[in-house]
């Protein structure tokens, strides 16, 4: 039987035992699906930073699937349009140009007050003492932040979060037809949302306005459809990963009863780095081998798909001492939660700040917070792993 069971609910609830067995048995493992699963830190880091491995694999697959299903009368065109400028799925030179375009125009990085305001707004609305934190804080805070930073109407955050939670299927590695149909609906809703917003100029000051303005003065401007795809990418990539991390981070702190330790340690950047290492939101990333090559003694053929288990690499004992233990004092803490190389996460600073401020708020204001249910449920997506709910008692 295969060692790679990424859809087994037990493995989604706790993938680390599967990763350990893979890393110890075959750190570069040929899965039943034909892809290679990489679980060792150095191998994963090598692939992330090598030019031999391309990122567009998933997008190529979705394009092929779309044209196959079109012949069966199933329309997935909106997915292709929405994902066209997902820079995570692009390779140089297209990737380099778009990434630079975003970075150059992302001017307002002083967002602490925005995040704090949104935390206040969400926590002031807490409906009682026993609540689902995912519903009332961690699930909505990243959408509130992303809306404010992009300059989208602030009351749209709930609708945007709902759309993004379906759009993230685009980055899942294993999907069925119903998932793709749902993804296509979300893609169409997102396209319609941004089209209406841009055409009516209803956006506020922020990243979207900067991008639109810079685009107007560009020698090779993006068309409306490309600009919309880029906006969807920025929203979804930043929002869904933060939803995942803020809630799983708090879950780990509560599960291991660490609020007191975190309060007295009072070094939230270190707490966040260690939780990113211990349980990162993006667990799997895909790459495509552009040439025949050898990785750590294993022959890889041009065209092979590689699945990089980031979360497994972060717990490689060859890289990290006592990797299954949360230890806030690791220094340096060189985890791969944000990737490495040319695709290194564009919003790492925002994810870090959001989670630091959210953790601090909870630890300071609710020092006695505790989980009300021993077992939690996870969404069926190992690539970007997130909680369905996080039920807690606040005081």
């Amino acid at each position: 039987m295969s060692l790679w069971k990424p859809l087994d609910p037990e493995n989604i609830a706790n993938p680390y035992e599967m990763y350990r067995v893979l890393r110890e048995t075959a750190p570069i493992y040929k899965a039943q699906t034909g892809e290679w699963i990489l679980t060792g830190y150095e191998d994963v880091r090598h692939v992330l930073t090598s030019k031999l491995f391309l990122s567009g694999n998933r997008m190529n697959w979705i394009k092929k699937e779309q044209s196959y299903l079109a012949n069966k009368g199933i329309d997935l065109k909106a997915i292709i349009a929405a994902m066209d400028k997902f820079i995570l799925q692009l390779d140089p030179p297209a990737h380099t140009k778009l990434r630079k375009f975003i970075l150059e125009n992302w001017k307002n990085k002083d967002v602490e007050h925005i995040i704090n305001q949104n935390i206040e707004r969400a926590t002031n609305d807490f409906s009682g003492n026993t609540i689902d934190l995912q519903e009332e804080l961690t699930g909505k805070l990243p959408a509130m932040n992303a809306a404010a930073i992009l300059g989208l109407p602030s009351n749209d955050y709930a609708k945007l979060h709902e759309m993004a939670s379906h759009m993230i299927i685009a980055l899942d590695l294993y999907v069925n037809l119903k998932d793709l149909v749902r993804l296509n609906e979300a893609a169409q809703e997102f396209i319609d949302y941004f089209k209406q917003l841009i055409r009516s100029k209803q956006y506020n000051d922020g990243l979207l306005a900067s991008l639109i303005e810079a685009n107007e003065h560009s020698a090779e401007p993006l068309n409306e459809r490309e600009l919309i795809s880029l906006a969807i990418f920025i929203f979804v990539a930043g929002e869904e990963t933060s939803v995942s991390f803020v809630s799983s981070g708090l879950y780990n702190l509560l599960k291991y009863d660490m609020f007191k330790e975190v309060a007295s340690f009072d070094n939230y950047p270190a707490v966040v780095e260690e939780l990113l290492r211990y349980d990162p939101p993006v667990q799997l990333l895909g790459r495509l081998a552009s040439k025949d090559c050898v990785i750590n003694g294993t022959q890889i053929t041009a065209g092979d798909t590689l699945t990089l288990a980031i979360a497994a690499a972060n717990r490689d004992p060859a890289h990290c001492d006592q990797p299954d233990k949360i230890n806030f004092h690791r220094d340096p803490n060189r985890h791969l939660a944000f990737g490495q190389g040319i695709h290194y996460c564009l919003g790492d600073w925002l994810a870090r700040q959001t989670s630091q401020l959210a953790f601090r708020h909870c630890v300071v204001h609710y020092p006695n917070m505790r989980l009300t249910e021993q077992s939690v449920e996870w969404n069926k997506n190992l690539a970007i792993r997130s909680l369905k709910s996080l039920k807690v008692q606040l005081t």
Partner: protein
Amino acid sequence: MPKQSEIAYFITSLIAKETGLKETDITADGSFFEYGLDSISAIFLLEQVCERYNIELSPLYFWDYPTVDAFSKQIYKENFAL
């Protein structure tokens, strides 16, 4: 309640229709992928199986159970065996 043999026949006919092979060319223990199934067509065919039997199957089902025999046995076991 379908029998395993009926599920086996259904999947055989699906694969035959998709690949253009004759049903008699598809054996109980031959790999779906050698018959030409791939990650593109698998999604559509799996949905046909789900709809036919009103069940849910993991997207990796064809890979985890890559022959007519293994596939039909597992579906039967998970959904219809007493």
